[in-house]
């Protein structure tokens, strides 16, 4: 790997790790369901950048783009279904708090 590629990997890798930590922190600490989904979004964004960076550095950007597009489509499907579930839970509990979910049976 050339020195420029290493510097690029260092710069992007540093940012990706910070955003991963931010998203993970958001998912773990928040009790608001929509905010937890936003944290999940941040995690997938960091993974997308890391995926394309790996493709760029290994010279297989076409494959990386195809995988990134697949990731984006799956991300949308996950978010849409999760938002539907959150709205249903809100109708049941009149709250976006995750605490009432502890009372679920089963």
């Amino acid at each position, binding site marked *: 790997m050339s020195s420029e590629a290493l510097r690029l990997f260092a710069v992007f890798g540093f940012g990706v790790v910070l955003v991963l930590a931010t998203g993970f922190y958001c998912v773990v600490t928040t009790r608001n369901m929509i905010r937890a989904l936003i944290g999940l979004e941040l995690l997938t964004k960091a993974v*997308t950048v890391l995926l*394309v960076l790996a493709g760029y550095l290994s010279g297989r950007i076409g494959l990386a783009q195809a995988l990134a597009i697949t990731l984006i489509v799956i991300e949308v499907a996950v978010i849409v279904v999760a938002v539907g579930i959150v709205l249903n839970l809100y109708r049941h509990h009149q709250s976006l708090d995750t605490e009432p979910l502890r009372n679920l049976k089963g």
Partner: protein
Amino acid sequence: MNLDIDVMLVAAFVVAALVTVVAARLLRAVIGLALTSALVALLLFRLHAPIAAVFELSVCAGLIPAIFLVAIGMTQRLTAEDVAVRRHEKTQLFWALPLVLICAGILLTQVPPLLTFAPPSTVQTADVRHVLWNQRHMDLLGQVAILLGAAFSVVALVKEAAHEQ
């Protein structure tokens, strides 16, 4: 590649993610998320992945924040009094904005360009099409199945809620 631009974009990416998480209101968090997606699209463009960048910009910076906004609108309804108070707050906050923008524009015309933005070299966009259609066609089938599954799930969830009402 011009590393200065990349360092600035990565720094902006991290700051936007932090703003998204730290924002007190959900609406601001969603706006921060859209900003983060737009910056990710710029990063993908810098990494010679223009098609993925277009997907990121249109879907993640456009569609997903819209879905979140709909969800917030359905769960946090404001009273007329709240709306009046917030409108008053906004007026107090942004009365100086046009003045600041005019001053910034005048300053920008006086300062010589500090950064030379070098666009990435010509990319072979046919490559990703070849990969998607000839090598990873099972991925496409999977994507179609996932989208259909998501659509049916949302229909089922909405129907269940309508029955309860």
